[in-house]
Every structure is written in structure tokens, then in C-alpha cells.
């Protein structure tokens, strides 16, 4: 069918019926704006939560008399254990240096008093899935019926994972992740519903027109195309306006700040160009499909 005609019809509809069209455009713009702000926030939050979870580790203390060969054997045994992502060896000396850095006063004094390095050689084991870190501990040092943990491999003195800290980290970050995911889902649903409803309103205000077109003998697609084109245009314009505002906000507020504050430059957030494309596509799709679906009701004459 003549595309030019449909295009002309769509713009006639927009210019002669500008109030509902403008309302739809503004709605699209505002929801896109909110989504555009919220998506990076959600990502930064879950990114931070994941980072915190990444710190969950199991420390395997090596018996003090172990030879280099025994140590190597132990490392390989640990690496073969399920759910282990990486194994780092931290020697006594390194361990002390690390500890001194964290807490200079106490350790300097402590070593002096003890007359030597009290720390054991340590394997720091990072789990694949922090939620199942307990399994690693159980594997390396199964709990005896008496309640005591006994190492299962030769050369292990003790296995520790700061259980209470780990539990806190896991439950807190888990909650944060669930909350942000729920919020994101809610927001996306609200945006789609809001845009769809405004589009419905603008189509509804012209239902009589649609009825007349049907009576004159127009086919459904003949009537539908101009509305779909209108929807695409409204969605695109709303999306472009939102993206413009987002860009301005990013350039003027976020970028200068992120140079000073590491946190704002969260590493795992979406690329800005990708965000723009996603928002535009979503705006156009929701408003075009919304127009077509709403029309269906009035086309049944």
C-alpha cells in the first residue's frame, strides 16, 4: 500500500489531534528518563553487591612443618575440589606484611612480644559460587560427629572461613540483589503500562473516526498503519528527548563527579551508547505495538 499516504495520514493525525499525542510523547519521555537513570543504578548496586560477595574466601592454614612438595600437592588437591575458582598461596611473611598494613600498631607489637611470625602459610581459596562456600569447608575439613572439624588432607592444619562474617555478607547482598531486581521489574512494568495507557487514550479519542473508516470500506491494515506510524514517531521523539536529557545530565553532573569519586564510576554499569539504543528501541516498540493493539477493539465494527 502507498507508504507516502500512510505517512501523511499519520502526521495529519498528530497535528490535528496534538493534545493526546503530546501527552503520549511526554509520558514516553518521562518513563524513558526514569528508566535511563534507574538501569545504571540497579547495575551499580548489584555490581557492588557482587564485588562484596567476591571477598568471601576460605583460608586453609598449612601445617608448619610441611615441605615445598607437600604444599604443592595440597594446592593441587584443593584446586580439584568442587566450586573452587582460584587458590592463592600466601606465605607467612606475606601474611604478616598484609596484616601489618591493615593494623600496623597491634602487629608490630605482637611480633615483638612473640619474638617471631605467628602466622601460618596460607592458601586463600576463592569460591566459584559464594553461596556454596560452606561446601568447600565441609570438603576440606568435614565435621566429625563430635562437632569438631578434622582436615581431610595431609598438610592442612586448619580450615577457616570467618563463618559469621560470611553469612552476614551473603544474606545482606542477597537481599540487596533481590530488592533491586524487584524494583527494576516493577519500574519496567509501570513504564510499559503507563505508555500503553496513554497511547490507548490517544487512540480512544479517535474511535469514532475509526468506525467511520470501517463503514466506508477501509481494511483493517489501511486504518492501522497510520496509527502504528504515529506510535513509532511518538515513541521515537519521546525516546530522543529522554536520551538528550540523560546525556546532558551525564555530561554536566556525573562525569565531573566520577573523576573525584571512585564509587560513581562503577565498573559494571552498561555502556552509555548501548543504554541509549535500548531505551529508543523500547520506546518505539511499546508505543507502536500499543497503538496497534488498542485499535483492535475499535476495528471490530
Amino acid at each position: 500500500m502507498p507508504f507516502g499516504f500512510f505517512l501523511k495520514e499519520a502526521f495529519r493525525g498528530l497535528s490535528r489531534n496534538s493534545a493526546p499525542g503530546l501527552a503520549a510523547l511526554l509520558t514516553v519521555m518521562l518513563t524513558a528518563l526514569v528508566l535511563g537513570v534507574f538501569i545504571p543504578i540497579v547495575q551499580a548496586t548489584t555490581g557492588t553487591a557482587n564485588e562484596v560477595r567476591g571477598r568471601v574466601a576460605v583460608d586453609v592454614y598449612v601445617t608448619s612443618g610441611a615441605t615445598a612438595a607437600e604444599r604443592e600437592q595440597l594446592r593441587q588437591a584443593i584446586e580439584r575440589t568442587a566450586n573452587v575458582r582460584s587458590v592463592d598461596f600466601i606465605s607467612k611473611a606475606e601474611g604478616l606484611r598484609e596484616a601489618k598494613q591493615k593494623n600496623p600498631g597491634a602487629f608490630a607489637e605482637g611480633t615483638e612480644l612473640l619474638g617471631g611470625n605467628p602466622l601460618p602459610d596460607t592458601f586463600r581459596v576463592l569460591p566459584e559460587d559464594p553461596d556454596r562456600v560452606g561446601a568447600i569447608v565441609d570438603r576440606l575439613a568435614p565435621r566429625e560427629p563430635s562437632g569438631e572439624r578434622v582436615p581431610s588432607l595431609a598438610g592442612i592444619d586448619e580450615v577457616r572461613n570467618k563463618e559469621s562474617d560470611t553469612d552476614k555478607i551473603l544474606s545482606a547482598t542477597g537481599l540487596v540483589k533481590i530488592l533491586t531486581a524487584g524494583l527494576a521489574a516493577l519500574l519496567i512494568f509501570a513504564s510499559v503500562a503507563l505508555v500503553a495507557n496513554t497511547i490507548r487514550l490517544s487512540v480512544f479519542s479517535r474511535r469514532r473516526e475509526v468506525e467511520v473508516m470501517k463503514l466506508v470500506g477501509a481494511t483493517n491494515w489501511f486504518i492501522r498503519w497510520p496509527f502504528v506510524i504515529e506510535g513509532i514517531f511518538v515513541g521515537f521523539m519521546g525516546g530522543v528527548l529522554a536520551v538528550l536529557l540523560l546525556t546532558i545530565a551525564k555530561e554536566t553532573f556525573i562525569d565531573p563527579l566520577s573523576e573525584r569519586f571512585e564509587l560513581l564510576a562503577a565498573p559494571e554499569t552498561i555502556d552509555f551508547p548501548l543504554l541509549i539504543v535500548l531505551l529508543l528501541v523500547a520506546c518505539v516498540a511499546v508505543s507502536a505495538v500499543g497503538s496497534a493493539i488498542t485499535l483492535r477493539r475499535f476495528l471490530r465494527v
Partner: protein
Amino acid sequence: MTTTRLRSLPARAPSGATLPATPPAPRQTGAPVVELRDVSKIYGGGSVGLEQASMKISRGEFVFLVGATGCGKSTCIRLLMKELEPSAGSILIAGKDLDDVGPKQVALLRRNIGTVFQDYKLLPNRTVYDNVAYSLQVIGEPRQEIRRKVPDILRLVGLSTKLHNFPDQLSGGEQQRVSIARAFVNHPPLLLADEPTGNLDPETSIGIMQLIYRINRTGTTVIVATHDKEMVDKMRRRVIELREGRIVRDELSGLYRPDESTTEFAVRLRGEMGVGAEGHPN
């Protein structure tokens, strides 16, 4: 009157009130354009729109559907456009059963039926020109053809000076002329008019009816649902009278109501007020 456009014109074109007592016999050729076979329409809730109505209307006929409000005239028109589905019976248009017309073909059916309504049903945000052009655009007419035909038909209905006005800038009569132009611009074989003069004064009504009559004279079958007594009586065309969904009269050159004297009317008036023998059922 632009007689050059009219096909098979009788020797002297009768006009307005001086129509001959015996109208030219309708051309009975081929299958009827419209045929109703025992058609009933019961609306949801049980109210009767049409009850076992049968009629045949041949090509080129001019038919009045008359009767009081709620007698089934509009139901009949809407059934013919497939805006409604009959509850029973079958409707044939040009020999084709409307039951066999699928939802996708309804548009094609309607392109062959011109329609005129009491409330004009014009597209409010289009000019007169665009309103008429729309029904040509719908059938995919090329632009040059539209540019040629639309001013032509608007000249015919006498609106050549108001091409670029919007419907709300026109009088009722002018709006109805636009809707007639729209209905006839692609020369459909059938024209349906539902109370075309219902909102208009008698003087304007004559002009509108004149237009419809002229369309009929080009060979188009015309069905007019009306309660405009004066018009029916003057035109002396075929009259089909409906009462509570039933066809009670079908005369080739009828009056709105068979002749009755003032005294007969007085009797009926009194009867319908209370205890009449042939009274209203209420």
C-alpha cells in the same frame, strides 16, 4: 440537473412534487440486488430488531423503508452492511450470501455499498475534499483519478465552493451532501440511506432527496429508511412498511400510510390513546 451524467433517462424527468402517479416500473433484470429470506434479528436482551422479514429488491429500484422509530428500519440497513449479523435467515446481496462474506471481505462488500446516515458520519478532522477522497483512497485509486473525481462529485452535489472547509463549518444539509458525495464517488451499485433527512428541515430535505433520486437514475439501487411522510407521499416509489420488526406492507408506488381521511385519522388518534381496535399494543 446535469442530465448528461444520467443513464436511461425517461423522456421527461419528473421533479419534486409533480412526480407521475404511476412511476416507471422497476427494471426486473437478473438476480435481485438485495434479497432477505426470513431474516430475524434478536438483540441481546431479547428485543426484536427484525422478525422473519423477506423482500426482494431489483436492480435500479428506489425503495422506501418506512415505519415508526424502533420498527426495524435501521436494523435492516445495518444488516445489509454486515454491521450486524442476522439471528436467523439469510441475506443475499447481488446473489452472494452475507454469511459467506468473511471478516476480511467485509471491507470489499462495503466498498460496493454507498451509505448515508442521519448523523452524516463525516471524519471531523478532514476537509470536505479529504472526506470524499478518503473513500477513493481506501480502494487504492491513483492520485490523478482522485483529483479528477472529487471536485467533480462535489460540483454535482453543489459544494464546489466549500472544498476546503471542515465539516463543523458546514450546515446540516451541506454535511449531508458531503456524505452523499462520499457514498457515491466510486459509483457503488447499491446506496443505503438511513434517515438521510432526519435532521434536516423540509426545504433542505427536498434537495437531499433530489440528489438521492438522481443517483438512483444512474442505475444505482437505492434503499432509503425514513419517516419523512411528506417525502414518501410525494415521490410515490416502492414502500416497504415495517411494524415491530415485521414487514406489514410492500407496495410498488405507495404512500407513507394508506390514504386516510381526517375522520379516520381522528379515530386512529383516539384509538391509540386508549381502547382502539387496531391500536398500539402498549
